[in-house]
């Protein structure tokens, strides 16, 4: 049984804006599924429908085996949700928030206290537990949000842009925690506009554009679909002709760029060492050599004709990673 299943899922708003225009997806138990797309593509609307926060106007969806419309309460019992922008009350302390979350999930007071201590420790917030959330940094808020989503040990975890706006260090801390959760058996559905995040974390990626899934597969297969890796060989100008002749033995030469000779490797990255040896045997003096793999952005461009916003990482505040 898939952990998440959507069939022709649609959401149209009253002003005839079609936010989601028939999404079909299937996420197997234990997978990390990344929903990749630019702002306004329909990621958050899809998550809101799957988490029962918004009623679909068409199609159907089941989460953890329950229908999101007819069995909404069962869905909510089975899922953990960390929404975009970490919706936390700045006047509450971290500990109060997790205990409240435990009460909302019907967990007894002593058990709620135990779970709060355990989760605060897990996300490295024990020392800040009794401080008001308003004093937390962005990364700390995200970690607290994640911890509160785990209080009832959900089967499926929804993370809506869990690292947007975070610095690279905080982002990696969240990634580590998501991977660990997945290793423990939790199915994770995350939306992101960061290519690296989808690439690093996801077993499967769905690319959404204008409310429709335009591509869906493993990151490796999606990238392989748009082309093989190419090699950029920087070499002295007067040796270009010979270098082009040598690399042509290994694949299709591409137009030269920035003084480099380019070749699309017919058999992929495994041929790099052979190319280097061939260049050396020809007596060529290579200044630098780069293996350029297709990225998910290339996939996005191939599927939608535009680059993904937010593909570049943002920098924000820096903070310590929680102690392991």
């Amino acid at each position, binding site marked *: 049984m898939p952990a998440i299943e959507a069939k022709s899922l649609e959401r149209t708003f009253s002003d005839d804006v079609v936010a989601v225009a028939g999404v079909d997806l299937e996420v197997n138990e234990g997978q990390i599924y990344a929903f990749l797309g630019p702002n306004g593509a329909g990621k958050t609307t899809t998550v809101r429908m799957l988490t029962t*926060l*918004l009623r679909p106007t068409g199609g159907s969806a089941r989460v953890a085996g329950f229908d999101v419309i007819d069995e909404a309460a069962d869905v909510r019992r089975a899922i953990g949700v960390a*929404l*975009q922008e970490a*919706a*936390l009350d700045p*006047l509450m302390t971290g500990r*109060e928030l997790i205990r409240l979350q435990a009460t909302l*999930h019907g967990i007894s007071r002593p058990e709620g206290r135990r779970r709060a201590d355990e989760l605060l420790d897990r996300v490295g917030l024990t020392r800040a537990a009794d401080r008001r959330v308003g004093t937390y940094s962005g990364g700390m808020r995200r970690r607290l949000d994640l911890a509160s989503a785990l209080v009832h040990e959900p089967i499926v975890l929804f993370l809506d842009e869990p690292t947007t706006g975070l610095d690279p260090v905080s982002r990696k801390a969240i990634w580590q925690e998501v991977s660990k959760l997945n290793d423990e058996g939790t199915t994770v559905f995350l939306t992101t506009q960061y290519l690296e995040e989808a690439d690093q974390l996801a077993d499967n990626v769905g690319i959404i554009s204008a409310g429709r899934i335009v591509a869906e597969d493993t990151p490796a297969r999606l990238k392989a679909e748009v082309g093989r890796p190419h090699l950029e060989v920087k070499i002295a100008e007067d040796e270009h002709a010979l270098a082009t002749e040598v690399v042509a033995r290994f694949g299709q030469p591409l137009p030269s760029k920035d003084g480099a000779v380019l070749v699309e490797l017919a058999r992929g990255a495994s041929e790099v060492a052979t190319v280097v040896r061939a260049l050396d045997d020809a007596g060529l003096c290579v200044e630098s050599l780069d293996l350029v793999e297709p990225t998910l952005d290339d996939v996005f461009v191939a599927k939608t004709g535009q680059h993904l916003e937010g593909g570049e990482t943002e920098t924000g505040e820096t903070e310590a990673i929680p102690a392991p």
Partner: protein
Amino acid sequence: MTPAFLRANLNVIGALGARSVKQTFRRPQLLAPILVFPTLLLAIQTGGAGSAVNLPEFPAVNGFLDSMLAGAMIQSTLLAGNSGAIAFAVDIEMGFTDRLFAAPISRFAIVLGRLAGTFVLGIVAAVWFLAIGLIFGASIEGGVGGALLVIGLVALSAAAFGGLGAAIALRAGRASVVQGLFPLVFVILFLSSAFFPANLILEPARSVADYNPLSFIVEGVRDNIVFSPSLEGLAEALGAIALIGAISISLTVLALRHRLRTGG
């Protein structure tokens, strides 16, 4: 909303009510309208218009402060409802209510949690003004029983007015809209017998005050302070609270359904 529903959701309502009370005490701009503003108005009115008790048709009371306490309490309950509504709208704006909506609880319990908090703030307001009254020489003619009735009526009024605020917050979803309703509180108050006996108010305001449910609540509270508890006054006050409460619940249910259906 049956007893079974309340029993099943008691923990959640209690936890959300406790959060709501803490939130008010931790944010001075929410607490000030409930205690500080009505206290200041009470001080100004008592100090500046105390000789009104000498007017020919003014009811026989021990002192002007005794007569004004009920008005201050009801003003406080209206402002508690307004503060609660602002806090609720802030929760909606920052997405905190989505966190609650995503939990496996009755969504109406979320509103009841907020109203439970407002109920507690009503108790705080009643005790505060009773204490102020006693410190500055007022007497509670109804004794301890009367004081308990005052506390109960004020707390129930706060929850009923809070329901109206919650409905507006759910429908508008923006704190600025709810905040804009603040002046209405004073219009409603001054068109009741909160600050002046209805028989001394000029027409057409007098007719409005005669039918304003707020007047019935104020008089029900005032009876216990100025005179002695009367069954008729209590029944009228409870009837007015029940009417406002029923309207509140109906509007809140509609607003909640709309928000859940449309997502905004």
